[in-house]
């Protein structure tokens, strides 16, 4: 187990900056998920930590050793690639043993570790097969197996589940989480899927266009997003955003929808954005601080719950969540109630407006 410290890390490809000075401390034994939209630089950052990509500027330390000038193999880490990158001409056993052989480990020790990894990942009966004879899920396990036989101090994952079908992805998510609990090794996990991030991470770092937007626990990110980007990136379905204008009296006017008294401590005037998660828009509610009239335009029934797409009188569509037995149908008129305690407020620049602590 080891910590990883990024200090003002930058990366430019042929003069084009793609990572703009990242400071990040990954604690020893932490499962950190690096999440962000595709193309934001997650892989680049991970590959710099791995030693596969040169660091343009800044330093990366693993433990208390600065690793900028160390090769990938000297950093004592393992990496699982999105494509799995299994050696196609080697059996599963050889795939697992390859790295250990290169480290000139003794035969019996290699065999012990391969057997152990195969047992943990339940791939014992696949050991003599070639990668092309494996299903996607089995390849994934072998790739993870190849990472764990090294018994490294740090695991890196680059979108390891994105080539799997939905069901398998959920299953592997659980298995990765339990693997983490069993090994307790520091893990850095890259994904564009916020659900993966929320379910597995001890902490999440949200990356956007080569910059860190926020770092925190899943709870912090969901309940206290620092800006509009994080607010709409984290959470599925997405947070509803409503435009408003705060007048001199300190009340927010939502054009065509009414007024809302803002929580204590908010002193901003002018344009703001209100964020409301679907579960905080209560269909048919009457005890809210603001009621939004509209019409149901689409019903998504998921069994235990139902998502209602509601067309407001302003022409904007918002999403509300209701219990599965809620009696709404398409084209029903509806009123959505929201409480000012549940809303997130962002200023004109998209930064979170903190309310007074109760």
């Amino acid at each position, binding site marked *: 187990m080891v910590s990883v410290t990024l200090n003002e890390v930058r990366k430019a490809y042929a003069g084009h900056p793609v990572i703009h000075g990242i400071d990040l401390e990954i604690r020893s034994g932490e499962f950190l998920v690096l999440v962000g939209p595709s193309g934001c630089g997650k892989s680049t950052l991970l590959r710099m930590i791995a*030693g596969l990509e040169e660091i343009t500027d800044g330093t990366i330390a693993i433990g208390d050793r600065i690793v900028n000038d160390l090769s*990938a*193999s000297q950093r004592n880490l393992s*990496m699982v690639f999105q*494509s799995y*990158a*299994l050696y*196609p001409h080697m059996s599963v056993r050889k795939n697992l043993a*390859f790295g250990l052989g*290169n480290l000139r480990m003794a035969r019996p020790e290699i065999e012990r570790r391969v057997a152990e990894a195969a047992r943990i990942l339940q791939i014992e009966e696949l050991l003599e097969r070639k990668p092309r004879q494996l299903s996607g899920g089995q390849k994934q396990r072998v790739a993870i197996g190849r990472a764990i036989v090294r018994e490294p101090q740090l695991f890196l994952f680059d979108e390891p589940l994105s080539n799997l079908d939905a069901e398998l992805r959920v299953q592997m998510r659980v298995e990765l989480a339990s693997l983490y609990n069993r090994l307790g090794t520091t893990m850095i996990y890259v994904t564009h899927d916020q659900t993966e991030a929320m379910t597995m991470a001890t902490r999440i770092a949200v990356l956007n266009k080569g910059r860190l937007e926020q770092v925190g626990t899943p709870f912090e990110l969901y309940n206290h997003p620092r800006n509009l980007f994080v607010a709409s990136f984290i959470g599925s379905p997405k947070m509803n955003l409503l435009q408003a204008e705060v007048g001199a009296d300190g009340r927010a006017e939502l054009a065509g929808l009414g007024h809302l008294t803002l929580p204590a401590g908010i002193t901003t005037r002018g344009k703001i954005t209100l964020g409301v998660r679907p579960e905080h828009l209560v269909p048919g509610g009457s005890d809210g601080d603001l009621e939004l009239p509209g019409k149901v335009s689409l019903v998504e029934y998921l069994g235990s719950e139902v998502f209602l797409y509601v067309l407001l009188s302003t022409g904007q569509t918002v999403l509300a969540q209701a219990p599965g037995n809620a009696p709404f149908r398409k084209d029903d008129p509806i009123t959505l109630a929201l409480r000012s305690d549940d809303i997130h407020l962002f200023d004109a620049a998209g930064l979170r407006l903190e309310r007074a602590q109760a």
Partner: protein
Amino acid sequence: MEKFFRRNFAGYAFLAPWLIGFFLLALGPIVASLYLSFTKYNIVRPPQWIGLDNYFYMFQFDDRFKKALQVTFTFVVISVPAKLIFALAVAMALDKGVRAIGWYRALFYLPSILGGSIAVAILWRQLFDYNGVINAVVRWFGIDGPYWLSDPRYSLWTLIVLAAWQFGSPMLIFLAGLRAIPNDLYEAAEIDAAGPVRKFFAITVPLLAPVIFFNLVLQMIEAFKSFSGAFVISGGAGAPLDSLLFFTVYLYNEAFQFLRMGYASALAWVLLLIIALFTAIAFWTSKYWVHYENERG
């Protein structure tokens, strides 16, 4: 039958030029040469059937035939690996290096286009002449260069160098093969603590094996058939001292100098069988060292 033909007439019409060419220019001569190899035929008089005599003579009494085999085998065994290793080395350098390499590729391919031609063979002869450019360079270092072409100890080596210099086409095929190896395998190997040598032998060679095999067979066939360089440099007769008596040169001599068409046809068929045999051996051994990615099993 008639219906079938009428329906497919257009197809056969389009095929006709090729079919006519094939029967007239390829299959016809092949069959004719097989027949002639069992005859004595000097163009002037009609062919005279002598059964297997040409073949018996070849294997029992013909010392120049043996010499030609020896020269050709030496050439194949040395020039093919040399050319392939050289081609792979250049392909790897190009694959690693500059990516916008259209010009470089053309430049490297040029020798292969030119290399087979008579003009380059003549150029080569002048370069390696005792008073040629090569010896002029060697002389700067205070060495008196040998008679590269007229000394039987060196003449074959000069031709081997000429052959290896025509590495362009296998190089391009290697380059395409190298590009097809996913880069993340090298990255995985890098993390797995594999050095450059280990990466080469554990990743590049096995994944390139089908391409290596393809190039090997192609180049081997080409080397067995190689003619123009030896013909020009040896003055058409395999000189000096038959050291450049390539099989094809010997065959040419028998056919067009001594007008022993029947015997030359037999030589051609022996060469064909030798090439077929070696190709078959290559295919047969390939299942032990060539693994195709899409193969089941």
